């Protein structure tokens, strides 16, 4: 597109819009950056009312935990390089190495491997390198930083178990939600009947329901499910309470209305001639769906999948009530730090846990950012 004179912007407009973006970015990032800073300090520093104390952490430094200039410089460089890599290099590699139908799996594997490599380099190799350099140059720490809360959370409190549970629940929700949702979305997009319309409207009203009402209704049924189902299933009737599978089913259902609306509008933007042609060639609806539609539907599915992921990963109401301790996911586990009897240390540990669970979300957005925009552009919400 050639930039004509009229499209060129005046200086005032340019400055105004840049200034606006800068202010917004500060507001958007500040609370999150701030809790990340808090999580590395001793409790006294973390809740100090002077921001300089929180930043520099004098108490933490007094305990002999801190970073030298070299640590900071190397750390920041590495962080910057990884962000660049995740945004520019990784998407290309993933697309090059995975067959088209396996793109979603390819992405998951790629993102996982990248996260693991980052953790090993950042927490395994980097401290050794900088430790050597510091000893060599005789540098003193200038900023108080301590990873004790992270160690307490991940090692002592076995937070990795919650992480694995979250992984199980989110993977389950995304997979089932997309499978069921794409089928329904396709059916709804290709049927102009009144039934399809009313299903959509009812789904919309379901989406508006307050969740606490639904969830409170599940608890007694889930706890007593063995007794309720015994007449039907005999002695093998399961107790649904505490079962990740049951929670997956609940989360999928709660999210179904949004999923089918979203996917329906994606499918509406895929020309109907495409599958009609396949049907003329003798395919059934299912075959047409499998061989003609599936290859071209990925942008929409990835975008919708991301929203399902966010819902399952961030859910608190359903998971806290319906899962027992052995299967607890991360968000309710963090809320557990804030119950009736907590100490300041517990709170900082909760902050550290909160920052840890935000990290995978960071990575996800870094990698999928373009897919979100291009997916939405491809037509999610045009209809």
């Amino acid at each position, binding site marked *: 597109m050639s930039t004509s004179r009229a499209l060129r912007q005046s200086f005032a407009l340019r400055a105004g819009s840049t200034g606006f973006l800068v202010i917004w970015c500060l507001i958007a990032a500040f609370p999150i950056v701030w809790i990340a800073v808090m999580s590395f300090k001793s409790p006294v520093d973390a809740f100090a009312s002077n921001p300089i104390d929180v930043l520099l952490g004098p108490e933490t430094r007094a305990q002999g935990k801190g970073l030298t200039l070299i640590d900071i410089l190397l750390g920041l460089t590495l962080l910057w390089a990884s962000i660049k890599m995740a945004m520019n290099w990784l998407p290309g590699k993933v697309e090059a190495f995975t067959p088209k139908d396996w793109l979603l799996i390819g992405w998951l594997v790629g993102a996982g491997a990248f996260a693991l490599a980052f953790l090993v380099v950042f927490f395994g190799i980097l401290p050794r390198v900088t430790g050597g350099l510091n000893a060599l140059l005789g540098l003193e720490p200038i900023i108080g930083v301590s990873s004790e809360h992270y160690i307490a959370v991940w090692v002592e409190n076995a937070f990795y178990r919650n992480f694995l549970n979250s992984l199980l629940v989110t993977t389950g929700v995304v997979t089932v939600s997309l499978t069921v949702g794409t089928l329904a979305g396709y059916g709804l997009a290709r049927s102009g009947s009144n039934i399809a319309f009313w299903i959509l409207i009812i789904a919309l009203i379901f989406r508006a329901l307050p969740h606490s009402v639904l969830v409170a209704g599940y608890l*007694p049924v889930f706890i007593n499910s063995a007794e309720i189902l015994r007449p039907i299933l005999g002695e093998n009737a399961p107790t649904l309470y505490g079962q990740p599978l049951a929670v997956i089913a609940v989360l999928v259902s709660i999210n179904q209305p949004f999923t089918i609306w979203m996917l329906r509008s994606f499918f509406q933007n895929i020309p109907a001639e495409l599958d009609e042609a396949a049907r003329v060639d003798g395919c059934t609806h299912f075959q047409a769906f499998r061989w003609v539609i599936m290859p071209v539907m990925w942008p929409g599915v990835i975008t919708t999948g991301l929203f399902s992921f966010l819902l399952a990963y961030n859910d608190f109401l359903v998971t*806290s009530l319906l899962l027992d301790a052995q299967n607890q996911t991360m968000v309710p586990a963090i809320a557990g730090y804030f119950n009736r009897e907590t100490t300041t240390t517990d709170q900082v540990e909760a902050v550290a846990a909160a920052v840890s669970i935000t990290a995978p979300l960071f990575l996800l957005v870094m990698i999928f950012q373009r897919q979100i925009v291009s997916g939405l552009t491809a037509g999610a919400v045009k209809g």
Partner: protein
Amino acid sequence: MKIRHIAIAGAMSLIGSAGWAACSFENTTTIKSLTAGFEAWKSVTDAMAECGNVEAELDQEFRTKQPAAFATNPSLYQIGGVSNGTVTPLLNEGTIRPLDDLVARYGANLKPNQLIKIDGQTMAVAMMVNTQHLMYRSDIFADLGLEVPSTYDEVLAAAEKIKEAGVVDYPLGGTMKSGWNLAQDFNNMFLGYGGGFVNEDKTPAVNSEAGVKALNMMKALSAYMDPEYLVSDSTYVQQQFQQGKIAMANLWASRAGAMDDAAESQVVGKVETAAAPLAMAGGTPATTLWWDGIVLAKNMSDEEADAAFRVAMEGLDTEMVTGANDQAIWLIEGYQPGRLATGAIATATASPAPLPYPSTTEMGLMHTALGNNLPDFFTGAKSAEEALAAVEAEYLTAAKEAGIVE
């Protein structure tokens, strides 16, 4: 799935191999417990886990889950952790079992004081007591030449002096977060003024002279508090103490230990405890007594109950108390009251003694109604009488629904 199983198996075997030496028997029955999640419970369930095959669930939603989970057959948990408030639904629905024969067989180390008896039957075994009492900064009191207050009028006088001296941000702290905490603060003061919550026929009786006096005293106290007192719970008050922002508060005994925690507190050694102040001369200290303890589910086999009780006894033994002495005011043999336990013991042994928190269905309804309606008095939307009338109206609606009042 597989990785997860391996990880859990690994964690379990770690617990297992470290264990058994400390437990007097090897437990082979799977025992699950559902309790609240504070430090004392952590120590108790860790000690139970040493016997092997114990899965402890420390859950902030236990109040919601416990009644339903114990009502199933077989019960989803064998051991439950309760306090005098939360034992009520289990007692009402008959889902916990009498423990007398088990106590006779395995409870040789229990003190008679620990056995919670309902109509002569032991229904629960208590492990600790908790109460709200006065904590104060002894250094500030010494500097200003103040006496430790024993009544709330003296508390107000001391607060005024501290305010004039300007040594702290706010002379007083209060656990007055709207909802449960605020209602509990009212309960303390109301009982201190000799009030009774319900009449014989279970109709409400809080809109009384004692109720109005209690509210006015709380309002007078709140003038010396952080203006954000309606969002301040016990953790917040504890932090205010630790950061040296307040000089006095009526705070839970279980919070006292945190004052001497060097990693969090800037006032190590400067906080002392004393008996809960009186609201009126000759009355009881304006507070309530609480206990925490264990119950066993009814819906399980006698063999399981046997194993569960033995495991629980391991959790409540002297060895556990020695390792966690300052986490609570333990009732268990071997507890050595520390410096900070003075206030709790003085409160519990006061004469006339403070009442235990009443564990009745009506009290549950009343507590909720108080928590929902009292904030209107403190924000100035209603007078004391209007707020208490609203409490009574909400209580009546709920009591009619529950079938308590016709």
